[in-house]
């Protein structure tokens, strides 16, 4: 037993592939906890970034610069009274958030945070991910239906129509990326890890291959994924100014927080797909161009250095805190937070750790870029109307994505084509 546990550490496959149950459980727990923490801090980042874009401060009271605000919110939501409307369909109402959370987290089974940092590697990874994440709409429709109220019903119907129509454009672009994997080896793959390795072999991220086809595909996908996750400017299902809170109107407390969790987990999931397919997944910048042992070491130091720098920033602001009694707890909290970050940073600099951690770091950074885009869109854009949303999905994104698939295919077989023409 223990032997098999230790043995896994020397293998270079995912625990699912290795069939090691212990490490699968550990990975599942790690991923679940990691995503949950990610959601919590995403919440903090969103509020802070939105606030600063809107020339205000955002949460400032709970903890230094409101760092503990999401935790306080989570606690509040758990303690809050859980209301169920009298006329609601009780079972469906109960099951809807469960369904949404389940599907949102299931997708992470195949997300590769590194060459071995995935729960498992499926040969139909991308397909599995798309399939599972699109099941989330089921929960939303259940929520809207079970609430037995007008606003949720309208919200969930909007959500259903929207997810179904954007799913198609999204899948089409994915097809184009999958076709690109066959370029070097001649055999394509749907495995998430395989796709990243194909990008390593082809010496380019798929976003930049077949310029501008890859970039267009990424663009289409990144628009469709915003619609897919019901975020602004496509947040019609929960459009606050029209439908109050859409399908969430009748939910409160813990159930509501599950929807919240699922929404953000879904955002992270689709961003992970985009990262894996077009931005080279866990690969560090320029793995081939700046190859070699020295460059490897240099890049693997970056995660640790980042954390140490953050710690230094915290400690710097600790010294700048106003020394009044009301701020004392905040100041100490900030210093402690800096200390924790510093310790994490130093641990990350250790040779054994840094090699394994750096993949996760680069992956997170790329996903974080998409997350920032989500927030940025939300602060900047007005909301689309329903007919316009449908128009974009069917009349703009779908033709473009089909064009992308055709172009990818044509460019992919250009040599054979040319040979045909010349002969």
């Amino acid at each position, binding site marked *: 037993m223990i032997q098999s546990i230790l043995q896994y550490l020397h293998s270079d496959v995912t625990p699912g592939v290795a069939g090691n149950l212990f490490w699968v459980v550990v990975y599942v727990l790690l991923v679940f906890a990691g995503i949950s923490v990610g959601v919590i801090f995403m919440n903090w980042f969103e509020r802070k970034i*939105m606030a600063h*874009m*809107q*020339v*205000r401060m955002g949460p400032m009271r709970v903890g230094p610069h409101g760092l503990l605000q999401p935790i306080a919110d989570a606690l509040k939501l758990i303690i809050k009274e859980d209301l169920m409307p009298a006329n609601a369909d009780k079972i469906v109402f109960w099951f809807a958030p469960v369904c949404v959370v389940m599907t949102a987290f299931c997708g992470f089974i195949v997300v590769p945070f590194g060459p071995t940092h995935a729960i498992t590697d499926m040969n139909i990874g991308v397909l599995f991910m798309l399939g599972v994440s699109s099941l989330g709409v089921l929960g939303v429709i259940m929520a809207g239906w079970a609430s037995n109220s*007008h*606003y949720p*019903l*309208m919200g969930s119907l909007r959500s259903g129509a929207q997810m179904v129509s954007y799913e198609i454009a999204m899948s089409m672009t994915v097809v184009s990326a999958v076709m690109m994997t066959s370029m070097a080896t001649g055999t394509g793959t749907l495995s998430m890890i395989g796709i990243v390795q194909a990008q390593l072999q082809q010496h380019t991220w798929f976003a930049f291959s077949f310029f501008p086809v890859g970039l267009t595909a990424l663009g289409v996908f990144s628009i469709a994924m915003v619609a897919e996750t019901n975020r*602004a*400017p496509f*947040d*019609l299902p929960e*459009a*606050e*100014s*029209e*439908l*109050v809170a859409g399908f969430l109107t009748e939910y409160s407390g813990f159930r509501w927080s599950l929807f919240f969790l699922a929404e953000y987990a879904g955002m992270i999931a689709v961003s992970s797909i985009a990262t894996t397919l077009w931005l080279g997944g866990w690969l560090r910048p320029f793995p081939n161009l700046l190859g070699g042992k020295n460059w490897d070491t240099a890049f693997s130091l970056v995660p640790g250095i980042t954390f140490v720098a953050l710690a230094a920033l915290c400690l710097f602001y600790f010294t700048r805190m106003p020394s009044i009694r009301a701020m004392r707890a905040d100041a100490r909290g900030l210093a402690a937070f800096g200390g924790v970050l510093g310790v994490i940073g130093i641990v990350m600099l250790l040779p054994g750790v840094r090699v394994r951690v750096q993949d996760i770091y680069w992956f997170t950074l790329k996903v974080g870029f998409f997350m920032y885009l989500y927030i940025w869109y*939300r*602060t*900047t*854009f*007005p*909301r*689309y*109307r*329903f*007919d*316009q949303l449908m128009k974009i999905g069917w009349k703009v994104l779908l033709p473009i994505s089909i064009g992308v698939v055709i172009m990818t295919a044509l460019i992919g077989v250009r040599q054979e084509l040319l040979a045909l023409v010349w002969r």
Partner: protein
Amino acid sequence: MSDNRFYDSPIEEVAPGNTFLDSNELVLNMGPQHPSTHGVLRVILKLDGEKVNGIECVIGYLHRGIEKVAEHRTWAQFGPFVDRLDYTAAVSNSLGYCLAVEKLLGVEVPKRAQYLRVILTELCRLASHQVWLGTHVLDIGAVTPLFYAFRDREDILNVFEKYCGARLTTHAFRIGGCRWDAYAGFAEQVLHICDDLGPKIDEYRDLITGNRIWLQRTKNVGVISAEDCIAYGITGPVLRGSGVEWDLRKKQPYSSYEDFDFDIPIGTAGDTFDRYVVRVEEMHQSIRIIRQATEGLMEGPIIAKVPKVIKPPVGEVYVSIEAPKGELGFFLVSNGSAMPYRVRVRPPSFINLQALEKMAKGSLVADVVAIIGTLDIVLGEVDR
């Protein structure tokens, strides 16, 4: 108001007890507690999917009986109450009421007071339009302009606070003129706002006007023709957005507006976008007026001789001004006593809101919200 109306109303054809699913149409009750009804407006929508087949406004949730209150206050005591009509433009209301009473009394307001009134009223128009801009854009889904607009409104409210000691319900003017003279540094602060605000309004333009989503959401939404506007009695930016060049400040100048040089922006299509452009352009024009008035502010008395207990002669007058929302009129009836016999407020929001039915029928739910926003209603004024 009550649920009975909901079932008795012509909109409701589903018998109580049946669920909405038995019908092809869905009756959606928007408000009075709803994020985008600008207060306590209740709108009952009859929907076919997303399409609005019928619409009815239910108002009166904020009815405070201000017209009745007036009959039991003296002429001067009613002054603070008019601030509560359109609370985003309290100064304008105050000006309208004071002008009406002065007309009844036959009092000539000193020139300096008139200029001060113009400056403050135009500042108030800016503030009111900024509230409109922020909330209207918020209705359409963009969050950020609200904060920028409120940030800039803050500078204007600071002027109000320094001038008369209150920010929102200002009670700025008195019958016969102004109570306060300009404070030290008034002109500099106002001119500073004028210099500052222009570029900031342009910033909203970068954020909104060119944005394709904004254009799609507002163009050809809530179209109303000039003839319909006149039939409905609509005034203000909504009328001008439909292409009628009509502004009381120009056509029937009051309080020395004839001294200032400004344009009346008008739209062509009469849709939500045109009204948006008209209002934003009006903000630029207001800045022009404020600049001229501040630079031309002369020395002199600020209040005319008005008896301590105001007893206007028997008679009635109707005086109206161009408030930010439209024509704000006061119809005063005096029986020669110290209290008004009747005060009738002609509220622009109330009359403009009537057109919602016409403008929103046949559009989508999202458009209803946009149209409520573009009408720029304030429920304090609708319900009085």
